[in-house]
């Protein structure tokens, strides 16, 4: 960890580390470092700081004992700070908001555990937890998504393969595929299934609202060895560097385009319109987007795409191409 830590942040870490170390006497330096997200040298620095601190008087008997012989850490004589500081506002907020979001997951079986954990946290955190009511995450699923979610989770639980009829909206194509489910994610309120897809022979992220039909198959659905959950960033779907760059001139009314899709660059024009650069592996998706915008967006480049937009619009109007 190389991020800057202020003196107060470090104090916060020490006040948590001391009670943890006191409960884990003789723990490996490496494990202590990993638990607190710092390197071993930092833990040694921390221990060096601890043993010059103590209760008033600061005679040898008053000071905290800290040692790290043979990479094993021991901490003692620190009774005043032997318990962690109660949860701060942001700490309580983070847990309470996420737990409440989890509790709202339709059909989740752990309702009971979530409710109990919430009640305990709220009573331990007091005011800090009450403030958390002002921040919330609305997790919902419509009737169709709920049905899909239930079936997908049944597949996950029993490690069985799933058959999907899945709408690839960008290609306006309905596809059939067998997948081995890995996990269900709710990313910023949208539902996704991450699974090993036997059609693509690769792992894929599926939006649950685009799963038209799902059934649990009899086959074992354990994903292959190489399937590993991927880190998910905002927006989930990222363009690849090989994708073609398209420049659009977008009127102010259609500025949402720049917010909705991952864009490489946006240049705001004096009249409020935008020049947007975005990348796509699938030009037909972009052509449909431009038609959909009904004149509020113009393809600047590449020329081939301009031709596709014109040609399709003429044919739709029944004009000779």
């Amino acid at each position, binding site marked *: 960890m190389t991020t800057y830590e202020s003196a107060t942040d470090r104090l916060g870490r020490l006040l948590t580390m001391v009670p943890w170390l006191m409960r884990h006497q003789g723990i490996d330096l490496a494990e202590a470092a990993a638990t607190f997200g710092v390197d071993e040298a930092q833990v040694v620095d921390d221990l060096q700081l601890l043993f010059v601190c*103590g209760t008033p008087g600061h005679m040898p008997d008053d000071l905290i004992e800290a040692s790290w012989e043979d990479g094993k850490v021991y901490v003692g004589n620190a009774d005043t700070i032997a318990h962690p500081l*109660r949860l701060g506002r942001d700490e309580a907020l983070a847990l309470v908001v996420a*737990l409440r979001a989890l509790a709202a997951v339709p059909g989740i079986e752990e309702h009971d555990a979530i409710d109990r954990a919430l009640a305990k946290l709220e009573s*331990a955190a007091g005011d800090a937890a009450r403030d958390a009511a*002002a921040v919330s995450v609305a997790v919902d699923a419509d009737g169709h998504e709920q049905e899909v979610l239930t079936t997908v989770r049944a597949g996950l639980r029993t490690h069985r393969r799933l058959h999907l009829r899945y709408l690839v909206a960008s290609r306006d194509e309905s596809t059939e595929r067998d997948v081995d489910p890995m996990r269900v994610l709710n990313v910023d309120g949208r539902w996704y299934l991450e699974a090993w897809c036997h059609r693509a022979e690769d792992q894929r992220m599926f939006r649950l609202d685009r799963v038209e039909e799902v059934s649990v198959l009899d086959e074992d659905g354990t994903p292959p060895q190489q399937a590993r959950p991927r880190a998910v960033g905002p927006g989930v779907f990222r363009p690849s560097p090989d994708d073609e760059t398209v420049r659009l001139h977008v009127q102010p009314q259609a500025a949402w385009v720049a917010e909705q899709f991952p864009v490489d660059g946006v240049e705001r024009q004096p009249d409020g319109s935008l020049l947007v650069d975005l990348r796509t592996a699938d030009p037909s998706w972009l*052509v449909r987007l431009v038609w959909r915008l009904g004149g509020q967006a113009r393809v600047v480049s590449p020329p081939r795409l301009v031709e596709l937009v014109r040609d399709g619009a003429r044919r739709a109007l029944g004009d000779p191409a």
Partner: protein
Amino acid sequence: MVRPSPAAAKTERLLNLTICLLYTRQPLSKSRIRTLVPHYADSSDEAFDRMFERDKDELRELGVPLRTEVIDAFFDDEVGYRVDQREYRLPEIDFTPDELAVVGLASRAWSQASLAGPAAQALRKLQAAGLERDEAGVSGIEPLLHTTEPAFEQVRRAVLTRTPLRFTYRGGGAGVVTQRHVHPWALTSWHGRWYLTAHDVDRDAPRVFRLDRVEGTVTLARASGTYTVPAGHDARAMITTSQGTEETVRARVALRPGSGHTLRRRASEVTPGEDGWDVVLLDEVSRSALVADVTGLGPAARVLEPAELTAAVRDRLRAVLAAHDEQEAP
């Protein structure tokens, strides 16, 4: 021995101060504290005063419940300081393994968002209080939150402390930029976006703001807690309503075979039509959404009825052609 860096010296001083205030049973006067905490004793009067005031603030900011109490009931003008052990400590929480599993999951939800640090710290505190981590997942469901909006941190602080806010806001539609002055009520993530619900002071009405449309710096008022949030404020209902509901219409659309899957999914009936195309019947569909969907399908879709929507789609397609007119300068 090497002299500690200024930052390390400060951590040392704050730790000694915390221990000293936890250790005492009686409130300690400022002058007494000065004799008990090594770094204070070595400082000039003026430097000590400044340091002590700042240190108190920082401990409070960290969540240390620092009490100010009258030292002696007979001389009530002298105040002292202490920290009550019972107020300081995280109460013993006895989580069962299944509870701990959901708490772990909750802490990971923020792993890529602005509360990643506090979430991890909260879990460590629970572990420091004796809980052992349980990596068991919760039936494969993982919530993940993102906070990419630059305004998130400031708005969150304002909401939690009920502090009036000023910011520049780019409205939807024509993207008009306005200055807003609001009393924040709640911060809500809904369908992938963070929304602020608030009382708009200038408009004297409740308003919903999208955080990703807040531009530039956000200014918090000096005083917090100066207003109250209406009892029973339902942020989600307010956001849903602000999205607007539109009149729906019954429509028939012709689709080329194999296309228009989104429309087919919503159809109550699909029948074969002329030229091998399919005709789908949509019982309740919003006008603007249907026009956008059909226009987006280009030559693969046509609205059969109502006629006004057929015309609306054709108008849009003509607008597409006009925008891409060869005569127009690039």
